[in-house]
């Protein structure tokens, strides 16, 4: 018997009982679709996190004051000192490392921002012109902080998009003066709207030169130093150099913490990939359930078609051929079922993507492959027993319908 004939005969028997066939395919396709949609969601979450991190800046290394150690007593505590501040000079010294491309010192504080009668409490960032590049921000109108002497406390500021709207509405903001704390600043630029990134709403920020912010808040220390390494391969070197330079400048004490974005990102990546696989695995159980359903239905089919099987044997079909016919039926069921499931799953993912545009939903290829193979596998596996049963029927008894 030819393969094409086997398939045609099998599809004929499937068409012979359309309701049963449709229900089976539905079960199969829901299983496949579940795997596709759930893994697409997991993958979407993973990508969302990765995107958020890279929107912070690439090849980013961050220096923060104080030593966060998980074990033992830090040197600072031994000597009874509080960690020393990171100064602007410390930050500039970092540029000595050949691994480092640029740095942006960062201070943070809050002050009241006012223009005429309008008044609002805002988060003020103090930094330098390089922040724009390091932190992947983009300017909407005007200019960002001017490059030049890091110690110069110019009275200029850059407004977040929403701040500008609140204070100026549709008026021209660049060139106008605002009051920040007890000092007047000239608006030189407005950031492009960026939305939220890692919990910090850049739209609601006011950015001033770092020296000005030191005066504003009457401090000398830095909240963070953001470092951009030359490229990905220099990240470890950067981290090492930063630790070394800082400890040199702090008379040998390791009183800063240097974290790389990559390490954090890699952890998130691992966790979310594991989560996606777990969710996909759970969904795959529904495929196994569909497999059991197929077995059940195939057993019923064997029982219903006993006479036909007897007839086929009388007409000269060996047991092997009967087995192939039932295999082919199961394979067609699960094959068409998985194709329908893939369509359903992709449609579902697409719809979810439309409903939650910020989530980059897309089914990972490995999940799609695994779902399809599992569907085909269970379909054929669970038809082994019914097919063998059909093949072993005694032809005389089968013809008599017993």
């Amino acid at each position, binding site marked *: 018997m*030819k393969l094409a004939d086997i398939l045609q005969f099998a599809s004929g028997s499937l068409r012979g009982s359309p309701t049963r066939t449709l229900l089976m395919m539905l079960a199969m396709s829901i299983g496949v679709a579940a795997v596709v949609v759930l893994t697409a969601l997991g993958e979407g979450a993973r990508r969302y996190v990765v995107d958020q991190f890279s929107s912070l800046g690439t090849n980013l290394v961050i220096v923060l004051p104080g030593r966060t150690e998980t074990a033992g007593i830090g040197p600072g505590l031994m000597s009874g000192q509080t960690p020393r501040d990171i100064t602007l000079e410390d930050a500039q010294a970092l540029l000595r490392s050949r691994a480092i491309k640029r740095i942006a010192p960062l201070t943070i504080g809050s002050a009241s921002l006012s223009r005429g009668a309008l008044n609002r409490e805002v988060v003020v960032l103090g930094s330098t012109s390089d922040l724009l590049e390091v932190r992947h921000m983009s300017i909407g109108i005007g200019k960002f902080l001017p490059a030049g002497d890091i110690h110069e406390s110019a009275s200029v500021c850059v407004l977040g998009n929403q701040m500008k709207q609140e204070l100026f509405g549709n008026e021209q903001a660049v060139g106008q003066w605002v009051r920040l704390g007890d000092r007047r600043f000239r608006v030189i630029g407005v950031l492009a709207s960026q939305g939220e990134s890692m919990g910090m709403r850049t739209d609601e920020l006011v950015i001033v030169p770092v020296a000005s912010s030191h005066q504003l808040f009457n401090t000398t220390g830095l909240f963070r130093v953001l470092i951009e390494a030359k490229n990905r391969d220099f990240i470890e070197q950067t981290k090492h150099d930063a630790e070394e330079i800082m400890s040199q400048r702090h008379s040998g004490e390791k009183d800063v913490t240097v974290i790389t974005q990559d390490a954090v990102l890699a952890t998130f990546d691992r966790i979310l990939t594991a989560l996606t696989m777990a969710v996909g695995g759970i969904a795959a159980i529904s495929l196994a359930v569909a497999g059991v359903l197929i077995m059940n239905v195939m057993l019923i089919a064997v029982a219903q078609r006993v006479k036909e099987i007897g007839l086929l044997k009388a007409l000269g079909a060996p047991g092997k051929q009967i087995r192939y016919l039932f295999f082919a039926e199961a394979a067609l069921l699960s094959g068409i079922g998985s194709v329908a499931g893939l369509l359903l799953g992709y449609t579902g993912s697409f719809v979810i993507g439309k409903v939650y545009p910020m989530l980059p939903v897309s089914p990972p290829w490995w999940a799609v492959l695994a779902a399809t193979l599992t569907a085909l596998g269970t379909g054929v596996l669970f038809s082994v027993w019914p097919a063998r049963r059909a093949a072993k029927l005694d032809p005389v008894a089968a013809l008599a319908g017993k």
Partner: protein
Amino acid sequence: MIELQNVCRTFTVGDQQVAALRDINLRLDAGEYISIMGPSGSGKSTMLNMLGLLDRPSSGTYLLDGGNVSDLNDEQQARVRREKIGFVFQSFHLVPRLTAAQNVELPMILAGIPGEERKARVNVLMQNYGLSDRADHKPDQLSGGQRQRVAIARATVMNPTVLLADEPTGNLDRNTGWEVLKLLEGLLQQGITLVVVTHDGEIGARAQRQIHMLDGRVVSDESTQNDPK
């Protein structure tokens, strides 16, 4: 051609042994027209199934062209059924979801014959049996006589050497039954060996060789000078 030697067939029902065939010795030659008669339960159907390799002897030997059939495996036996034996049943046994033409085509599909040849052979047979205008009808749209003609077309489409018919007229009225019988007897001209199991003495009497069975035994085996051809 076919020879049964001391063939017995016993069924086990619960803890009882039912002997359906007892010590059968029988030889069928090519081109013979044989009728098997006997009361209900005498073992006629069992005998026919045995001859058609649908059943195996509990003891004794079945020789086909001199070779012992029990030496053949499932696949080889299936091949013998496919190529040498045709069955016609009392209740037709057509596949309800297939059309008349597709039912006739079925043995050739199982044999792996290419599509064009199948179509050609089906067309010839449907024409010979006056079924051309019924080719695309499903069995439940056909009369009893038409169904049996489709079944006969199916049984002969592989040009078997033996045709085994178990009460082929049993479910048909008298006239239709005679028509079907005429059709079967027509096959004798092609040299086929025809074995007909029947309750109807009038039908059985038409065969040249008439076998009577009783309680699993052959009680008489007579040849006459009939010439139904």
